[in-house]
Protein backbone atom coordinates (compact mmCIF):
# COMPACT_ATOMS: atom_id res chain seq x y z
CA UNK A 1 0.00 0.00 0.00
CA UNK A 2 1.38 3.36 -1.01
CA UNK A 3 0.46 6.21 1.25
CA UNK A 4 0.09 9.37 -0.78
CA UNK A 5 -2.00 12.23 0.65
CA UNK A 6 -1.18 14.18 -2.52
CA UNK A 7 -4.05 12.31 -4.22
CA UNK A 8 -6.47 14.01 -1.86
CA UNK A 9 -4.77 17.38 -1.83
CA UNK A 10 -5.00 17.60 -5.61
CA UNK A 11 -8.71 18.23 -5.13
CA UNK A 12 -8.02 21.47 -3.29
CA UNK A 13 -11.05 23.44 -4.56
CA UNK A 14 -13.43 20.72 -3.36
CA UNK A 15 -11.72 20.47 0.01
CA UNK A 16 -11.90 24.25 0.25
CA UNK A 17 -15.64 24.30 -0.35
CA UNK A 18 -16.17 21.56 2.26
CA UNK A 19 -14.01 23.45 4.71
CA UNK A 20 -15.97 26.62 4.04
CA UNK A 21 -19.29 24.89 4.75
CA UNK A 22 -17.87 23.44 7.97
CA UNK A 23 -16.53 26.82 9.11
CA UNK A 24 -19.79 28.62 8.32
CA UNK A 25 -21.90 25.97 10.09
CA UNK A 26 -19.55 26.05 13.03
CA UNK A 27 -19.28 29.82 13.45
CA UNK A 28 -22.98 30.48 12.89
CA UNK A 29 -23.76 27.57 15.23
CA UNK A 30 -21.53 29.08 17.93
CA UNK A 31 -22.95 32.58 17.49
CA UNK A 32 -26.53 31.30 17.55
CA UNK A 33 -25.78 28.94 20.41
CA UNK A 34 -24.17 31.67 22.52
CA UNK A 35 -27.05 34.07 21.88
CA UNK A 36 -29.84 31.57 22.52
CA UNK A 37 -27.90 29.97 25.38
CA UNK A 38 -27.47 33.33 27.06
CA UNK A 39 -31.16 34.10 26.70
CA UNK A 40 -32.08 30.70 28.12
CA UNK A 41 -29.73 31.10 31.10
CA UNK A 42 -31.03 34.62 31.75
CA UNK A 43 -34.65 33.53 31.47
CA UNK A 44 -33.97 30.65 33.84
CA UNK A 45 -32.34 32.97 36.36
CA UNK A 46 -34.81 35.82 36.31
CA UNK A 47 -37.94 34.32 34.74
CA UNK A 48 -39.43 32.52 37.69
CA UNK A 49 -39.80 28.90 38.71
CA UNK A 50 -42.00 27.60 35.87
CA UNK A 51 -39.73 28.96 33.15
CA UNK A 52 -36.67 27.67 34.97
CA UNK A 53 -38.10 24.15 35.25
CA UNK A 54 -39.46 24.05 31.70
CA UNK A 55 -36.26 25.26 30.08
CA UNK A 56 -34.22 23.11 32.44
CA UNK A 57 -36.04 19.98 31.28
CA UNK A 58 -35.49 20.90 27.64
CA UNK A 59 -31.80 21.49 28.25
CA UNK A 60 -31.51 18.10 29.98
CA UNK A 61 -33.14 16.32 27.03
CA UNK A 62 -30.79 18.01 24.59
CA UNK A 63 -27.73 17.24 26.70
CA UNK A 64 -28.82 13.69 27.47
CA UNK A 65 -29.29 12.46 23.89
CA UNK A 66 -26.73 12.05 21.10
CA UNK A 67 -26.47 14.86 18.58
CA UNK A 68 -26.84 12.29 15.79
CA UNK A 69 -30.25 11.19 17.09
CA UNK A 70 -31.38 14.82 17.31
CA UNK A 71 -30.23 15.38 13.74
CA UNK A 72 -32.07 12.27 12.52
CA UNK A 73 -35.26 13.32 14.29
CA UNK A 74 -35.17 16.78 12.79
CA UNK A 75 -34.12 15.71 9.30
CA UNK A 76 -36.05 12.47 8.75
CA UNK A 77 -38.85 13.06 11.27
CA UNK A 78 -39.43 16.71 10.38
CA UNK A 79 -41.23 16.12 7.05
CA UNK A 80 -43.79 13.93 8.86
CA UNK A 81 -44.90 16.95 10.88
CA UNK A 82 -44.60 19.44 8.04
CA UNK A 83 -41.09 20.63 8.85
CA UNK A 84 -39.10 20.13 5.70
CA UNK A 85 -35.62 21.54 5.97
CA UNK A 86 -32.83 21.27 3.44
CA UNK A 87 -29.64 19.66 4.72
CA UNK A 88 -27.68 22.84 5.45
CA UNK A 89 -30.47 24.74 7.28
CA UNK A 90 -31.37 21.55 9.11
CA UNK A 91 -27.76 21.04 10.19
CA UNK A 92 -27.47 24.65 11.21
CA UNK A 93 -30.62 24.56 13.34
CA UNK A 94 -29.65 21.26 14.96
CA UNK A 95 -26.15 22.49 15.76
CA UNK A 96 -27.43 25.81 17.12
CA UNK A 97 -30.02 24.17 19.37
CA UNK A 98 -27.49 21.65 20.65
CA UNK A 99 -24.96 24.43 21.25
CA UNK A 100 -27.56 26.59 22.99
CA UNK A 101 -28.33 23.85 25.51
CA UNK A 102 -24.67 23.54 26.49
CA UNK A 103 -23.94 27.29 26.38
CA UNK A 104 -26.95 27.96 28.59
CA UNK A 105 -25.41 25.71 31.25
CA UNK A 106 -22.08 27.54 30.98
CA UNK A 107 -23.82 30.89 31.42
CA UNK A 108 -25.88 29.52 34.28
CA UNK A 109 -22.68 28.53 36.07
CA UNK A 110 -21.29 31.96 35.20
CA UNK A 111 -24.29 33.71 36.75
CA UNK A 112 -23.95 31.57 39.85
CA UNK A 113 -20.24 32.31 40.17
CA UNK A 114 -20.61 36.07 40.38
CA UNK A 115 -21.24 36.95 44.04
CA UNK A 116 -24.70 38.54 44.36
CA UNK A 117 -23.06 41.15 46.58
CA UNK A 118 -21.33 42.68 43.55
CA UNK A 119 -24.59 43.29 41.73
CA UNK A 120 -26.27 44.52 44.91
CA UNK A 121 -23.40 46.88 45.57
CA UNK A 122 -23.77 48.27 42.05
CA UNK A 123 -27.48 48.75 42.63
CA UNK A 124 -26.74 50.55 45.91
CA UNK A 125 -24.44 52.85 43.98
CA UNK A 126 -27.46 53.89 41.95
CA UNK A 127 -27.19 51.63 38.87
CA UNK A 128 -30.45 50.19 37.61
CA UNK A 129 -30.93 46.41 37.63
CA UNK A 130 -30.26 46.24 33.90
CA UNK A 131 -27.20 48.45 34.20
CA UNK A 132 -25.89 46.36 37.06
CA UNK A 133 -26.28 43.22 34.95
CA UNK A 134 -24.64 44.82 31.94
CA UNK A 135 -21.82 46.67 33.66
CA UNK A 136 -21.02 44.34 36.54
CA UNK A 137 -22.50 40.88 36.14
CA UNK A 138 -21.65 40.24 32.47
CA UNK A 139 -18.04 41.51 32.56
CA UNK A 140 -17.35 39.41 35.64
CA UNK A 141 -19.00 36.42 34.02
CA UNK A 142 -17.00 36.79 30.83
CA UNK A 143 -13.76 35.68 32.43
CA UNK A 144 -15.43 32.71 34.11
CA UNK A 145 -17.27 31.46 31.04
CA UNK A 146 -14.52 31.98 28.48
CA UNK A 147 -12.51 28.76 29.04
CA UNK A 148 -15.52 26.38 29.02
CA UNK A 149 -17.02 28.34 26.11
CA UNK A 150 -13.90 27.79 24.01
CA UNK A 151 -13.87 24.11 25.00
CA UNK A 152 -17.45 23.80 23.87
CA UNK A 153 -16.66 25.53 20.58
CA UNK A 154 -14.09 22.81 19.91
CA UNK A 155 -16.62 20.09 20.74
CA UNK A 156 -19.11 21.71 18.36
CA UNK A 157 -16.60 21.74 15.51
CA UNK A 158 -16.16 18.03 15.97
CA UNK A 159 -19.89 17.39 16.28
CA UNK A 160 -20.42 19.20 12.98
CA UNK A 161 -18.71 16.24 11.26
CA UNK A 162 -21.82 14.23 12.13
CA UNK A 163 -23.80 16.39 9.70
CA UNK A 164 -22.08 14.56 6.83
CA UNK A 165 -24.60 11.80 7.56
CA UNK A 166 -27.54 13.95 6.41
CA UNK A 167 -25.78 14.89 3.15
CA UNK A 168 -24.51 18.30 4.30
CA UNK A 169 -21.55 18.91 1.97
CA UNK A 170 -19.15 19.78 4.79
CA UNK A 171 -15.51 18.85 5.28
CA UNK A 172 -15.92 15.22 6.37
CA UNK A 173 -18.45 14.45 3.62
CA UNK A 174 -16.34 16.14 0.94
CA UNK A 175 -12.99 14.64 1.83
CA UNK A 176 -14.31 11.12 2.43
CA UNK A 177 -16.11 11.30 -0.93
CA UNK A 178 -12.82 12.21 -2.62
CA UNK A 179 -11.19 9.31 -0.80
CA UNK A 180 -13.79 6.85 -2.11
CA UNK A 181 -13.62 8.24 -5.61
CA UNK A 182 -9.82 7.97 -5.74
CA UNK A 183 -9.59 4.74 -3.72
CA UNK A 184 -7.40 6.68 -1.30
CA UNK A 185 -9.31 5.88 1.87
CA UNK A 186 -6.57 6.15 4.43
CA UNK A 187 -5.18 9.31 2.90
CA UNK A 188 -8.62 10.94 3.11
CA UNK A 189 -9.00 10.11 6.79
CA UNK A 190 -5.48 11.33 7.44
CA UNK A 191 -6.10 14.65 5.68
CA UNK A 192 -9.35 15.08 7.63
CA UNK A 193 -7.64 14.43 10.96
CA UNK A 194 -4.92 16.98 10.21
CA UNK A 195 -7.34 19.71 9.12
CA UNK A 196 -9.60 19.33 12.17
CA UNK A 197 -6.63 19.14 14.47
CA UNK A 198 -5.20 22.34 13.03
CA UNK A 199 -8.49 24.23 13.50
CA UNK A 200 -8.85 22.96 17.06
CA UNK A 201 -5.27 23.90 17.96
CA UNK A 202 -5.73 27.37 16.49
CA UNK A 203 -8.99 27.79 18.40
CA UNK A 204 -7.33 26.77 21.65
CA UNK A 205 -4.51 29.28 21.12
CA UNK A 206 -6.99 32.02 20.29
CA UNK A 207 -8.97 31.16 23.41
CA UNK A 208 -5.88 31.46 25.59
CA UNK A 209 -4.95 34.80 24.04
CA UNK A 210 -8.48 36.09 24.68
CA UNK A 211 -8.35 34.83 28.24
CA UNK A 212 -5.07 36.63 28.92
CA UNK A 213 -6.34 39.85 27.38
CA UNK A 214 -9.55 39.71 29.34
CA UNK A 215 -7.86 39.07 32.67
CA UNK A 216 -5.32 41.84 32.02
CA UNK A 217 -8.15 44.19 31.10
CA UNK A 218 -9.90 43.33 34.31
CA UNK A 219 -6.90 43.83 36.55
CA UNK A 220 -6.12 47.07 34.75
CA UNK A 221 -9.61 48.36 35.36
CA UNK A 222 -9.68 47.28 38.99
Amino acid at each position, binding site marked *: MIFNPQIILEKLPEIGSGLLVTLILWLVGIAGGVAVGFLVATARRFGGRAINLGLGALVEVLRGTPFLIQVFLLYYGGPFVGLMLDPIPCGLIALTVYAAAYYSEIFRAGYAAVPPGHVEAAECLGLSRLQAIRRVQIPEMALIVLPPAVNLAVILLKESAVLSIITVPELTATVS*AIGSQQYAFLEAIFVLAVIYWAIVEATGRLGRVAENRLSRLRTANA
Partner: protein
Amino acid sequence: MLKRHFLKAAVSLALFAGTALSAHAADDALARIKAAGVMKVGTETAFAPFDFIDGGDHAGLNVDFFAELGKDLGVKIEWVALPWDGVLPGLEAGKFDFVAGPATITKARLERYKMTSPIAEATVAILKKAGDKTITKPEDIAGKAVGVGKATAQLAQLQEYSATLSKKVEVREYVSFNDAYADLAAGRVVAVANSLPNIAFVAQQRKGAFEVVTPAFGKKTYFGFIGKKDEDSKTLVDLVNEETIKMKKDGRLGKMQEKWFGTKFDTPDAVTDPAF
Protein backbone atom coordinates in the same frame (compact mmCIF):
# COMPACT_ATOMS: atom_id res chain seq x y z
CA MET B 1 -29.42 -12.03 18.85
CA LEU B 2 -27.53 -8.85 19.49
CA LYS B 3 -26.54 -9.84 22.98
CA ARG B 4 -25.12 -13.02 21.57
CA HIS B 5 -23.35 -11.01 18.92
CA PHE B 6 -21.83 -8.79 21.54
CA LEU B 7 -20.70 -11.70 23.70
CA LYS B 8 -19.27 -13.44 20.68
CA ALA B 9 -17.37 -10.31 19.83
CA ALA B 10 -16.09 -10.07 23.38
CA VAL B 11 -14.91 -13.66 23.23
CA SER B 12 -13.25 -13.09 19.87
CA LEU B 13 -11.55 -10.11 21.43
CA ALA B 14 -10.16 -12.37 24.13
CA LEU B 15 -9.03 -14.92 21.57
CA PHE B 16 -7.73 -12.25 19.25
CA ALA B 17 -4.06 -12.54 20.15
CA GLY B 18 -4.17 -16.32 19.80
CA THR B 19 -5.84 -16.43 16.41
CA ALA B 20 -3.63 -13.69 15.04
CA LEU B 21 -0.65 -15.90 15.75
CA SER B 22 -2.10 -19.17 14.52
CA ALA B 23 -3.41 -17.54 11.34
CA HIS B 24 0.10 -17.33 9.97
CA ALA B 25 0.36 -21.08 9.94
CA ALA B 26 -2.00 -21.58 6.95
CA ASP B 27 -0.83 -20.60 3.47
CA ASP B 28 -3.55 -18.44 1.95
CA ALA B 29 -6.89 -16.75 2.59
CA LEU B 30 -8.95 -19.81 1.65
CA ALA B 31 -6.85 -22.16 3.77
CA ARG B 32 -7.17 -19.81 6.73
CA ILE B 33 -10.95 -19.63 6.33
CA LYS B 34 -11.16 -23.41 6.25
CA ALA B 35 -8.87 -23.75 9.24
CA ALA B 36 -10.87 -21.23 11.25
CA GLY B 37 -14.21 -22.58 10.05
CA VAL B 38 -15.42 -19.01 9.56
CA MET B 39 -15.62 -16.79 6.51
CA LYS B 40 -16.00 -13.11 7.23
CA VAL B 41 -18.09 -11.19 4.73
CA GLY B 42 -18.34 -7.42 4.68
CA THR B 43 -21.52 -5.77 3.52
CA GLU B 44 -23.92 -2.89 3.88
CA THR B 45 -27.33 -3.68 5.29
CA ALA B 46 -29.24 -0.94 3.49
CA PHE B 47 -29.35 -2.37 -0.02
CA ALA B 48 -32.65 -4.20 -0.38
CA PRO B 49 -33.41 -6.73 -1.73
CA PHE B 50 -29.79 -7.89 -1.68
CA ASP B 51 -29.02 -6.99 1.87
CA PHE B 52 -31.29 -5.35 4.41
CA ILE B 53 -32.70 -5.44 7.90
CA ASP B 54 -36.22 -6.82 7.85
CA GLY B 55 -37.88 -6.04 11.17
CA GLY B 56 -34.58 -6.52 12.99
CA ASP B 57 -33.38 -9.56 11.02
CA HIS B 58 -30.61 -9.58 8.43
CA ALA B 59 -32.18 -10.72 5.15
CA GLY B 60 -31.82 -10.65 1.39
CA LEU B 61 -30.24 -12.45 -1.53
CA ASN B 62 -26.77 -12.01 -0.04
CA VAL B 63 -27.76 -13.82 3.13
CA ASP B 64 -29.24 -16.74 1.16
CA PHE B 65 -26.33 -16.89 -1.26
CA PHE B 66 -23.60 -16.90 1.35
CA ALA B 67 -25.54 -19.38 3.49
CA GLU B 68 -25.40 -21.78 0.51
CA LEU B 69 -21.74 -20.98 -0.05
CA GLY B 70 -20.98 -21.60 3.60
CA LYS B 71 -22.78 -24.94 3.42
CA ASP B 72 -20.81 -26.01 0.33
CA LEU B 73 -17.57 -24.90 1.94
CA GLY B 74 -18.32 -26.27 5.38
CA VAL B 75 -17.71 -22.95 7.13
CA LYS B 76 -19.82 -20.48 9.05
CA ILE B 77 -20.49 -17.04 7.61
CA GLU B 78 -19.78 -14.08 9.85
CA TRP B 79 -21.24 -10.79 8.65
CA VAL B 80 -19.58 -7.42 9.18
CA ALA B 81 -22.00 -4.58 8.42
CA LEU B 82 -20.54 -1.17 7.60
CA PRO B 83 -21.75 1.97 5.85
CA TRP B 84 -21.05 1.35 2.14
CA ASP B 85 -18.25 3.92 1.93
CA GLY B 86 -16.43 1.90 4.60
CA VAL B 87 -16.83 -1.52 3.00
CA LEU B 88 -14.11 -1.43 0.31
CA PRO B 89 -11.62 0.22 2.70
CA GLY B 90 -12.53 -2.55 5.16
CA LEU B 91 -11.71 -5.21 2.56
CA GLU B 92 -8.37 -3.59 1.78
CA ALA B 93 -7.59 -3.34 5.47
CA GLY B 94 -8.25 -7.08 5.81
CA LYS B 95 -11.29 -6.72 8.07
CA PHE B 96 -13.09 -9.45 6.16
CA ASP B 97 -12.38 -11.97 3.42
CA PHE B 98 -15.00 -10.95 0.87
CA VAL B 99 -17.50 -8.22 0.08
CA ALA B 100 -21.11 -9.13 -0.53
CA GLY B 101 -22.63 -5.76 -1.44
CA PRO B 102 -23.15 -6.65 -4.22
CA ALA B 103 -21.18 -4.13 -6.22
CA THR B 104 -21.55 -3.04 -9.80
CA ILE B 105 -18.83 -4.55 -11.94
CA THR B 106 -17.03 -1.52 -13.36
CA LYS B 107 -13.76 -0.86 -15.13
CA ALA B 108 -12.39 1.07 -12.17
CA ARG B 109 -13.21 -1.70 -9.72
CA LEU B 110 -11.78 -4.45 -11.94
CA GLU B 111 -8.50 -2.57 -11.93
CA ARG B 112 -8.34 -2.79 -8.18
CA TYR B 113 -10.31 -5.88 -7.19
CA LYS B 114 -11.39 -9.29 -8.39
CA MET B 115 -15.10 -9.55 -9.05
CA THR B 116 -17.12 -12.73 -9.28
CA SER B 117 -19.50 -13.91 -11.94
CA PRO B 118 -22.56 -11.60 -12.09
CA ILE B 119 -25.53 -12.45 -9.91
CA ALA B 120 -27.94 -9.80 -11.19
CA GLU B 121 -28.30 -6.87 -13.51
CA ALA B 122 -27.13 -3.53 -12.13
CA THR B 123 -28.18 -1.08 -14.83
CA VAL B 124 -29.06 2.25 -13.26
CA ALA B 125 -32.49 3.85 -13.57
CA ILE B 126 -34.60 6.44 -11.80
CA LEU B 127 -37.09 5.99 -8.99
CA LYS B 128 -39.61 8.79 -8.59
CA LYS B 129 -42.57 9.57 -6.40
CA ALA B 130 -45.70 7.82 -7.65
CA GLY B 131 -47.73 10.04 -9.92
CA ASP B 132 -45.02 12.68 -10.40
CA LYS B 133 -45.95 14.05 -13.84
CA THR B 134 -42.83 16.23 -14.12
CA ILE B 135 -40.60 13.18 -14.56
CA THR B 136 -41.61 10.79 -17.32
CA LYS B 137 -38.20 10.03 -18.83
CA PRO B 138 -34.69 10.01 -17.38
CA GLU B 139 -33.61 13.34 -18.88
CA ASP B 140 -36.37 15.09 -16.91
CA ILE B 141 -34.09 15.08 -13.87
CA ALA B 142 -31.93 17.80 -15.47
CA GLY B 143 -31.44 20.66 -13.02
CA LYS B 144 -33.23 18.83 -10.19
CA ALA B 145 -32.11 17.28 -6.90
CA VAL B 146 -31.46 13.55 -7.18
CA GLY B 147 -30.40 11.24 -4.37
CA VAL B 148 -27.85 8.45 -4.63
CA GLY B 149 -25.63 6.38 -2.33
CA LYS B 150 -22.19 7.61 -1.32
CA ALA B 151 -19.14 5.91 -2.86
CA THR B 152 -21.28 3.86 -5.25
CA ALA B 153 -20.95 3.04 -8.94
CA GLN B 154 -24.49 4.39 -9.28
CA LEU B 155 -23.18 7.77 -8.13
CA ALA B 156 -20.42 7.70 -10.72
CA GLN B 157 -22.92 6.83 -13.45
CA LEU B 158 -25.33 9.54 -12.36
CA GLN B 159 -22.52 12.09 -12.47
CA GLU B 160 -21.53 10.94 -15.96
CA TYR B 161 -25.14 11.09 -17.13
CA SER B 162 -25.66 14.49 -15.50
CA ALA B 163 -22.82 15.93 -17.56
CA THR B 164 -24.67 15.00 -20.77
CA LEU B 165 -27.88 16.82 -19.76
CA SER B 166 -28.89 20.37 -20.64
CA LYS B 167 -28.69 21.33 -16.97
CA LYS B 168 -26.59 19.51 -14.41
CA VAL B 169 -28.32 17.38 -11.82
CA GLU B 170 -27.99 18.47 -8.20
CA VAL B 171 -26.52 15.23 -6.83
CA ARG B 172 -27.11 14.49 -3.13
CA GLU B 173 -24.90 11.76 -1.70
CA TYR B 174 -26.49 9.69 1.07
CA VAL B 175 -24.76 7.31 3.47
CA SER B 176 -27.22 4.66 2.29
CA PHE B 177 -29.86 4.32 -0.40
CA ASN B 178 -32.46 3.90 2.35
CA ASP B 179 -31.85 7.47 3.41
CA ALA B 180 -32.24 8.58 -0.20
CA TYR B 181 -35.60 6.79 -0.47
CA ALA B 182 -36.73 8.46 2.76
CA ASP B 183 -35.85 11.84 1.29
CA LEU B 184 -37.64 10.99 -1.94
CA ALA B 185 -40.76 10.25 0.10
CA ALA B 186 -40.27 13.51 2.01
CA GLY B 187 -39.77 15.43 -1.23
CA ARG B 188 -36.28 16.79 -0.69
CA VAL B 189 -35.16 15.01 -3.85
CA VAL B 190 -37.35 14.34 -6.90
CA ALA B 191 -35.66 11.07 -7.80
CA VAL B 192 -33.24 8.40 -6.61
CA ALA B 193 -30.80 6.83 -9.04
CA ASN B 194 -30.14 3.16 -8.30
CA SER B 195 -29.92 -0.18 -10.03
CA LEU B 196 -33.09 -1.67 -11.49
CA PRO B 197 -33.45 -4.68 -9.15
CA ASN B 198 -33.19 -2.38 -6.13
CA ILE B 199 -35.67 0.26 -7.19
CA ALA B 200 -38.07 -2.32 -8.63
CA PHE B 201 -38.12 -3.96 -5.21
CA VAL B 202 -38.67 -0.67 -3.37
CA ALA B 203 -41.44 0.38 -5.75
CA GLN B 204 -43.11 -2.98 -5.30
CA GLN B 205 -42.76 -2.87 -1.50
CA ARG B 206 -44.23 0.58 -1.30
CA LYS B 207 -46.89 0.55 -3.98
CA GLY B 208 -48.50 3.91 -4.40
CA ALA B 209 -45.46 5.70 -3.00
CA PHE B 210 -42.74 5.18 -5.62
CA GLU B 211 -42.51 4.37 -9.33
CA VAL B 212 -39.67 3.28 -11.58
CA VAL B 213 -39.01 5.51 -14.59
CA THR B 214 -38.15 3.54 -17.73
CA PRO B 215 -35.98 3.27 -19.70
CA ALA B 216 -32.82 2.97 -17.62
CA PHE B 217 -30.40 5.82 -18.24
CA GLY B 218 -27.24 3.89 -17.37
CA LYS B 219 -25.23 1.53 -19.51
CA LYS B 220 -25.93 -2.16 -19.09
CA THR B 221 -24.01 -3.33 -16.04
CA TYR B 222 -24.03 -6.28 -13.64
CA PHE B 223 -23.68 -6.94 -9.94
CA GLY B 224 -20.99 -9.21 -8.55
CA PHE B 225 -19.20 -9.88 -5.29
CA ILE B 226 -15.78 -8.44 -4.58
CA GLY B 227 -12.57 -10.11 -3.46
CA LYS B 228 -8.99 -8.98 -3.22
CA LYS B 229 -6.69 -9.09 -6.20
CA ASP B 230 -3.58 -10.33 -4.42
CA GLU B 231 -2.05 -13.79 -4.69
CA ASP B 232 -3.20 -14.63 -1.15
CA SER B 233 -6.88 -14.34 -2.12
CA LYS B 234 -6.62 -16.03 -5.51
CA THR B 235 -7.93 -19.47 -4.53
CA LEU B 236 -10.72 -17.90 -2.46
CA VAL B 237 -11.90 -15.65 -5.29
CA ASP B 238 -11.76 -18.54 -7.75
CA LEU B 239 -13.80 -20.67 -5.41
CA VAL B 240 -16.53 -18.06 -4.86
CA ASN B 241 -16.62 -17.53 -8.60
CA GLU B 242 -16.98 -21.25 -9.30
CA GLU B 243 -19.67 -21.48 -6.63
CA THR B 244 -21.61 -18.67 -8.26
CA ILE B 245 -21.51 -20.37 -11.63
CA LYS B 246 -22.46 -23.66 -10.00
CA MET B 247 -25.48 -22.06 -8.31
CA LYS B 248 -26.51 -20.57 -11.62
CA LYS B 249 -26.31 -23.97 -13.33
CA ASP B 250 -28.12 -25.97 -10.65
CA GLY B 251 -30.93 -23.43 -10.37
CA ARG B 252 -30.27 -22.24 -6.81
CA LEU B 253 -29.45 -18.70 -7.90
CA GLY B 254 -32.53 -18.66 -10.13
CA LYS B 255 -34.67 -19.55 -7.12
CA MET B 256 -33.09 -16.77 -5.09
CA GLN B 257 -33.71 -14.29 -7.90
CA GLU B 258 -37.31 -15.43 -8.05
CA LYS B 259 -37.64 -15.03 -4.29
CA TRP B 260 -36.14 -11.56 -4.09
CA PHE B 261 -36.87 -9.98 -7.46
CA GLY B 262 -40.04 -11.84 -8.38
CA THR B 263 -38.38 -12.81 -11.65
CA LYS B 264 -35.41 -14.75 -13.01
CA PHE B 265 -32.92 -13.31 -15.41
CA ASP B 266 -29.88 -14.43 -17.31
CA THR B 267 -26.49 -13.05 -16.45
CA PRO B 268 -23.26 -13.79 -18.30
CA ASP B 269 -20.77 -16.13 -16.64
CA ALA B 270 -18.12 -13.46 -16.58
CA VAL B 271 -17.79 -9.75 -17.22
CA THR B 272 -14.36 -8.93 -18.52
CA ASP B 273 -15.01 -5.65 -20.30
CA PRO B 274 -17.71 -3.69 -18.50
CA ALA B 275 -19.56 -0.93 -20.35
CA PHE B 276 -18.89 1.54 -17.54
